[in-house]
């Protein structure tokens, strides 16, 4: 497996792998740095615009610095009906940042997201790839305290 200077694996140069490579780069650096996108474009033989376009299209890719734990509280209607606002307020109180912000210690990024397919366990949220349902303020406190 050949490596580019920033360590992007380029086992395949087909655009097919762009999303996988972007995710890989993001998990390595925490977010998608501009120069990295340009390197990726070059190694795949596609335009910077094509790479930047994809990097900014998808909600799970970020060109801004992200915390180690990305909290995504569902804001869609089934969760809203189960008082997701209380969940949003609780997270805000626990970690001291508002939706859209990243904590200065780099521990948390707090986002609101659209339906995560856990409506039977509403209100629900994700932290990185894990889903937490049937949330209460007390449960949130415990979940967030367990984050590293």
């Amino acid at each position, binding site marked *: 497996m050949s490596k580019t200077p920033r360590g992007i694996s380029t086992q395949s140069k087909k655009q097919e792998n762009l999303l996988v490579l972007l995710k890989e780069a993001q998990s390595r650096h925490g977010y998608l740095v501009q120069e990295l996108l340009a390197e990726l474009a070059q190694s795949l033989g596609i335009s910077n615009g094509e790479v930047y376009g994809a990097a900014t299209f*998808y909600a*799970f890719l970020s060109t801004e610095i992200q915390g180690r734990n990305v909290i995504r509280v569902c804001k869609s*209607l*089934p969760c809203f009906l189960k008082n997701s606002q209380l969940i949003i307020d609780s997270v805000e109180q626990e970690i001291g940042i508002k939706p859209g912000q990243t904590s200065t210690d780099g521990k948390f990024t707090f986002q609101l*997201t659209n339906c995560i397919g856990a409506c*039977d366990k509403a209100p629900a949220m994700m932290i990185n790839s894990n889903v937490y349902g049937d949330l209460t303020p007390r449960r949130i406190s415990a979940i967030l305290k367990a984050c590293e």
Partner: protein
Amino acid sequence: MPENRIVLRNCEIINPGRISTYLARDGFQALSKARNMKQDQVIEEIKASGLRGRGGAGFPCGLKWELAKNAPGNEKYVICNADEGEVGTFKDRYILENDPFTLIEAIAIAGYAIGTRQSYIYLRAEYHYLLESLMKAIDQARKRGFLDGFDIDIREGAGAYVCGEESALMDSIEGKRGEVRYRPPFPPTEGLWGKPTIINNVETLMNIPQIVLNGAEWFSQMGTERSKGTKVFSVSGDVKKPGVYELVLGSQLKELVEDLAMAEKVKMIQIGGATGRIIPYSMIETPLSFETILGAGAITVYNESRDTIDIIYRTLEFLAEESCGKCSPCREGTEALVEIMGRFSRGEGETRDIIVLEQLSQAMMLSSLCGLGQAAPTPVMDSLQYFRDAYENRVREKQGGVPV
């Protein structure tokens, strides 16, 4: 009409981590039966069953397969759409969690029928936690020799509602922004990388093994004239028992919402998620079928305490955020709908806004490129039809009048 578990027949019965428990339930017998049939015979059986797509559009499954099989070329693809992003839908998650094997068998049957050895499961990013168990299930099937050189690769999304739309989904697999394509050409003739491709929803595929095993006639006895078989519904919102329910098509909404999910004091029901229909409680006896109302089976229930305007506003906010932006009727139209609904939500709406909502809705339905933009005005139009008072009362309140 009763609950009937065909799609969910193995859920919470087999161990999704052990293929032996699936084999004990006739697992992979449909695949072996199919491989002893001619490709055309398999397709004929699916066509005769009347199975239609369960992702919302309801396209006849067998016809889709036939088009792809008859399309020229050796390079073809099967895609399983597991990008379940419609608001209020979680049935495919439940299926993937509980019975990955039936899905694998169905994909292999589809591959045989259209004549390809390559298939993909497009899994939404939010379901990344299901990836490992899904890969293990594929691995077990492969080790047991059931796949026989047939490849099932998983491609993960990265967070985009519109990628559940088939052409955006294909662009996403190709490593691009998930923007919809102009059609025709349709995927069965020119799909992934321009090659003939069939894209089926998880639930659609889950029906295939049982149809192959029991025959088209068995399947087509269930349901209504143009809606055969069962449908899996995801019920959420103001209900005591949210969850996944499988009913014979044509069953009454009332049975699902009140008898099974135990909703009380229902004001309205959103059927099919953000782009779905909104109907008042007075229509609770509506049968659920392609002829009437269905969508992908998301059922969100709202009780009498809910504010219709607020619900529509939030629905439109979601659609504006998720519009891919390729065509202007959808990109600009959803934003404009949000702006106007916002005015009503804040009590600033005027009578002329109602007219603009209706005109804009018509234009978007006629001119948007894909289902998102075409159906985005549905909640607006439905609420104007059934809950017009809610809008008119806001206007009256603004003018200092008394709501009626």
